[in-house]
């Protein structure tokens, strides 16, 4: 508060001095004797001060912009009417361009890039040391024809040629760094994301124009060694005033945007207080902040990974076009808002949002965590089933490739032995024949055993052929319509398991089965004429493991499970 009062006092005093100096010697001033030009000039300085002091940006930016406004007013003081301020003005008359450049480069950025630092160093040195103090120590106003000018208290030795040379060199350097600054601004705008550009453009563009105009004036005055007030200077000066007013306006606009955001936040608090449908928080935030791409991720207590609203694990994006703001409340992270850059620029805003939406956030977060836990439970059940299936398949393969092949080989060996047997051993031949017969029966039994573990046809050909094969073996299974397409292996196994087990537990009567694929779900229906007995928990588990549901009555079993597209 005190800081603002002091700043305003200094600014208003500087404005008063400027008005006095110009009115006293209009011919020697930049504004000339036009009251309008003077008003505009002073207004531009005061607007910069006002914009600087009220901006919602880092304090460095605020002080620099206010200082720039005052320095702009000082630009008029190296004139006969300035009195005691004359000497100070000789040093500071060209200080406003580096201050402006410095301020706008800090706008929205916490630190300066290396090229920016180098550029500002050159700019400050040129303005204050070369054009300012350096020239002042050799400048004797009276000797150089300004008979009305106050005494230059900085004069060491009068040397008009040195003043001319320093002025000329300083102005050429000023023109050069102005051009470099404009290039720097455009490079920064070109690199920025579109959202960032929207925020920076209103401030950077008029500032670049003002500095470019300063560079033009420097180039224009470089031949004579000082900036003056010829008609070209007047024209450039008017444009410069307009550009500075636009800089102030741009800063004010950023403030308006921030204020609008706060208004949204306030409305959001009201909305959340009234009602919040489950899962609706991201939508409410998105509409409150006008960012439809806004997403919410929640922190888990037991797991460092983030989850989305459905409880699915989700990573924070590493994308220059997406910005992440973490919301903390009660000393821990609750959620992360993923939004377009520049939406929640100030840390204070994120804190306010976390406070405002805390209850709703906690509620949604717990919901998301519960869904994540359910999902991991289901996944682990699925893995248990998949492991069991894999073991059954490997057993089936072992039976097939091992025992079944061996027995078939053995049957051939016996047959070969029988062929070599002379016809004189009818009893031995009969016994070998019986052994061969026994082997054939054993092969048949093994085949059924292997099929009962998990039929190879299920993995090779799918659910339809596997159920058909089941019907080939169990004549009382009546097969209705079956889907022809393939599904994921766990879904096919679960459906087959339900059919095979229901058939096993059904009474002696017929069992009919049909299945169809509808809207991404596999619908399975079984009806047993004599009822299906026994508990069905294992069937429920099996179907639940692939995210489906099973319902059963005395005569019916119905299952439905998600099966992809």
């Amino acid at each position, binding site marked *: 508060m005190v800081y603002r009062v002091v700043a305003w006092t200094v600014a208003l005093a500087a404005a008063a001095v400027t008005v006095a100096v110009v009115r006293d010697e209009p011919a020697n001033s930049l504004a000339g004797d036009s009251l309008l030009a003077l008003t505009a000039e002073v207004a531009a300085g005061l607007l910069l001060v006002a914009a600087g002091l009220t901006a919602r940006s880092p304090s460095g930016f605020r002080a620099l912009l206010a200082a720039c406004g005052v320095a702009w007013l000082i630009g008029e003081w190296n004139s006969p009417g300035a009195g005691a301020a004359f000497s100070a003005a000789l040093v500071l008359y060209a200080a406003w361009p580096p201050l402006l450049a410095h301020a706008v480069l800090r706008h929205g950025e916490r630190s300066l890039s290396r090229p920016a630092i180098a550029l500002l160093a050159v700019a400050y040195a040129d303005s204050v040391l070369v054009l300012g103090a350096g020239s002042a120590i050799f400048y004797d106003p009276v000797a150089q024809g300004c008979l009305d000018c106050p005494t230059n208290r900085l004069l060491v030795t009068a040397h008009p040629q040195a003043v001319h040379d320093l002025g000329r060199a300083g102005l050429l350097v000023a023109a050069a760094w102005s051009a470099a600054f404009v290039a720097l601004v455009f490079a920064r705008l070109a690199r920025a994301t579109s959202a960032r550009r929207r925020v920076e453009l209103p401030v950077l563009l008029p500032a670049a124009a003002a500095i470019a105009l300063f560079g033009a004036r420097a180039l224009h005055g470089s031949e004579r060694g000082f900036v003056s007030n010829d008609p070209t200077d007047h024209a450039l000066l008017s444009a410069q005033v307009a550009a500075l007013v636009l800089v102030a306006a741009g800063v004010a606009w950023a403030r308006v945007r921030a204020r609008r955001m706060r208004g949204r936040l306030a409305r959001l608090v009201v909305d959340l207080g009234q009602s919040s449908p489950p899962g609706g928080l991201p939508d409410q935030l998105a509409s409150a902040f006008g960012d439809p791409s806004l997403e919410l991720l929640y922190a888990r207590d037991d797991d460092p990974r983030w989850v989305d609203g459905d409880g699915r694990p989700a990573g924070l994006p590493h994308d220059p076009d997406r910005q992440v703001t973490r919301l903390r409340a009660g000393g821990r992270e609750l959620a992360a808002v993923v939004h377009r850059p520049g939406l929640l620029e100030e840390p204070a805003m994120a804190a306010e949002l976390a406070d405002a939406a805390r209850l709703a956030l906690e509620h949604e977060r717990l919901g998301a965590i519960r869904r994540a836990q359910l999902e991991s439970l289901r996944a682990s059940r699925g893995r248990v089933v998949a492991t069991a299936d894999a073991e059954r398949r490997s057993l089936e*393969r072992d039976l*097939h*490739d091992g025992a*079944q*092949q*061996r*027995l*078939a*080989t053995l*049957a*051939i*060996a*016996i*047959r*070969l032995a029988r*062929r070599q047997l002379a016809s004189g051993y009818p009893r031995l031949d009969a016994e070998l024949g019986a052994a*061969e017969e026994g*082997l*054939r029966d054993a*092969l*048949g039994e093994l*085949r059924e055993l*292997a*099929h009962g573990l998990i*039929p*190879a*046809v299920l*993995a*090779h*050909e799918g659910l339809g*052929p596997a159920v*058909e*094969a089941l*019907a*080939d*073996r169990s*004549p*009382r*299974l*009546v097969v*209705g319509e079956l889907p022809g397409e393939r599904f994921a292996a766990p879904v096919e196994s679960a459906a087959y398991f339900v059919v095979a087990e229901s058939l096993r537990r059904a009474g002696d009567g*017929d069992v*009919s089965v049909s299945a169809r694929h509808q809207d991404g779900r596999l619908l399975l229906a079984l009806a047993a004429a004599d009822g299906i007995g026994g508990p069905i928990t294992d069937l429920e588990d099996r179907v639940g493991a692939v995210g489906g549901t099973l319902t059963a009555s005395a005569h019916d079993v119905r299952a439905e499970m998600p099966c992809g597209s």
Partner: protein
Amino acid sequence: MRVVIADDEALLRDGLARLLEDAGFEVVGRCGDADALLRMVDARRPEVAVVDIRMPPNNTDDGLLAAQEIRRRHAQIGVLVLSHHLEAHYAMRLLEDVPERAGYLLKERVSDIAVLADALRRIGDGECVVDPTIVSRLVARKRARGPLEELTEREREVLALIAEGLSNTAIGERMYLSPKTIEAHISQIFMKLDLRPGTDQHRRVLAVLAYLRAS
């Protein structure tokens, strides 16, 4: 008759070769995987290839795929697929592609050299062969009431033999009936089931199998 044998179990392969040689077949090649089989058939041109359904490289249905490939490449070379799988589905897959000169037998039958030799000869003659166990299971299947219920016991027997791939003459011999009687039965069956009585015997087998599986 010249045959090649493909089975990844070496002992079984060799035993089978000896059985077939004893029964008067000429075994011109033996191999243990699908790729070797295709090369061997291309090089030695047997009349029939005896193929195990499950073979390297994938140990799933490589033998069946190789058999289909042989039928596509060589119209005159027959294939007999041996399998531990009772599922009609596999037999259908083999026959659907090119039904003549193809057969599907359960592996436990191979030691019964008479059955094996008969199947090979029929395939050599251009017929097709389906394992009787598979057919009998298909015929025995429970159905939501349909025209199959209207067939007489004898007609069902004839239907099963058609599905096994037997010709009219062979069916007549098997049932001790005259060809004329067999023909009468067959036209009755086809009328009751509403199937078209084509002249092509292989298509007839396929139609009956499809009918048995579909209803």
